[in-house]
C-alpha cells in the first residue's frame, strides 16, 4: 500500500496550465498575424477567408487601404497563409486570446494608396503594389517593359484615356482619310 502511494505522484496527468505558462506545439494554427513590412495590401487573403474574418476596405478620403483581421470570426483554417503572394500573413501558435472586450480582437494594417501620376487622384491599389509590380518587371524585354512602365503609374481612367489617345494618334488611314483598318 505504501508503495502504491509512493508511485501515485508520478501518475498525475493534470495540467498546471493557467497557473504555469504552456509552450504550444510549433505547428499549432493559432492567431494569424500580418508582417507589416511585407504586406502589399493586395487583398488576396480577404478573398480567400471563408468567414470573411479578414476584410479589405479602401478609404479614398484618407488614402489608405485597410486590411483588417477580426479574430473573433477566424476559424484558423490557414487559407490566408496559403494564398498570400508575399508570405506576409502567417498563423502563429498563439492561442491565448480570450478577452472581456470584442474590440481587443482587431488587427489592422493601413497601407498608403498610390496616386495617379497624371490626374493625382487616389487609385484603388497601394503604393506597395506598384513597387512590387515594378520589381516583377526585371528580366522582361526592353520594348515590352517600356510599354508597361508607361501605364503602370496611372489610375484606371487615365490608363483608358491614354490608351485610346495613343490608338487614335497611331491609326492608319488610306489616301481619302478613312480608317483603313482597326487602329491596333
Amino acid at each position: 500500500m505504501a508503495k502504491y502511494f509512493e508511485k501515485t505522484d508520478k501518475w498525475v496527468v493534470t495540467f498546471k496550465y493557467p497557473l504555469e505558462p504552456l509552450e504550444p506545439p510549433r505547428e499549432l494554427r493559432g492567431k494569424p498575424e500580418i508582417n507589416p513590412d511585407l504586406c502589399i495590401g493586395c487583398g488576396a487573403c480577404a478573398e480567400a477567408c471563408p468567414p470573411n474574418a479578414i476584410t479589405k476596405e479602401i478609404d479614398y478620403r484618407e488614402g489608405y487601404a485597410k486590411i483588417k483581421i477580426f479574430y473573433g470570426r477566424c476559424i484558423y483554417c490557414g487559407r490566408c497563409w496559403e494564398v498570400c503572394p508575399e508570405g506576409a500573413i502567417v498563423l502563429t501558435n498563439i492561442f491565448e486570446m480570450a478577452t472581456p472586450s470584442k474590440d481587443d480582437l482587431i488587427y489592422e494594417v493601413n497601407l498608403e494608396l498610390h496616386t495617379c501620376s497624371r490626374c493625382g487622384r487616389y487609385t484603388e491599389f497601394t503604393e506597395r503594389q506598384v513597387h512590387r509590380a515594378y520589381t516583377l518587371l526585371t528580366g522582361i524585354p526592353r520594348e515590352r517593359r517600356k510599354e508597361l512602365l508607361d501605364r503602370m503609374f496611372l489610375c484606371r481612367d487615365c490608363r483608358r484615356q491614354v490608351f485610346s489617345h495613343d490608338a487614335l494618334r497611331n491609326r492608319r488611314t488610306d489616301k481619302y482619310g478613312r480608317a483603313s483598318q482597326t487602329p491596333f
Partner: protein
Amino acid sequence: MGGRPRPRFRSVWVFHVDASACNGCDIEVLDVLTPFYDVERFGVKLVPTPRQADALLVSGSVNRQAVIGLKRVYEAMPPKPRIVAAVGACAIAGGIFYDSLAVYGGVDKIIPVHIYIPGCPPRPEAILFGLGQLLGLVNKKIEPRILYPGRRVLDRKYGVLFNERLYKDLRYYLTRYVGYYDRDYILDDLLEIINSSRTVEELREKIMDKASRLKDPRLREVYSIAGGYIVEKIREETGAV
C-alpha cells in the same frame, strides 16, 4: 454590454448551453472537465440546471430556434452574477455561419457577454485561459493593433541567378507539392542555396548534393523536383533575354 465580472469568485458553477453549435465547441467544453485538463480544481463545476448556475458557457451561432431556449435559460439563472462566456467563433460573431439567414450570429446580440473565447473550436487550454480570466487567475494578453507601416515594402535580396518573378514561380510550384506549411522553410533553404551559387551548373550540383544528404525520402524528392524546375526556369529566362 455588461460590466466586467468581479475579479475573484470562489467557485463558479457553470451551465453549458448549446445554441446551435456544430458540436465541435461542446466537445472541447467537455474536454476541459476530463482529468487531464480538470477545470474542477478551480471550483468550476458543470451543473445540470441553470437555476444553480453562476455562469453560462454558450457555444454556437444562435439560430432562430436556439434563441428561445437561450433567453429562457438566461432568465432562469439566479439574478446575481449571471456571467456569460461565449465559447468559439460562432458564439462571438457567427463564425463560419455569420452570413446565414438562419442565425443571429453572436451571443452578444441576445444577452450580455462577459468573456469571449475565440477558436473554432477553442483548444481546451484556450477555454481554461478564458475561465482563468473570469476567476482572476490570469490577465488578458491580447490588445487591438492598428498599424501604419510606411510606403516601402521590404525587398528580398537575390543573387545573380534569381529575381522576384522566379521566386514567385518557385513559391507556387512548391505550394502545389507540399502545401503552405512546409513550403516556407523549404523555400528559405532553397533561396539560400540559389543566392550563394553563381552559375546554373553550380546551382544544380548544390541542390542535388543537398537532396542526397537529406534523410527524409519525401523531402529528398521535393528538393530534387523543385531543383529541376528552378534550373529549367532559370535556363529559359537567361535564354530569352
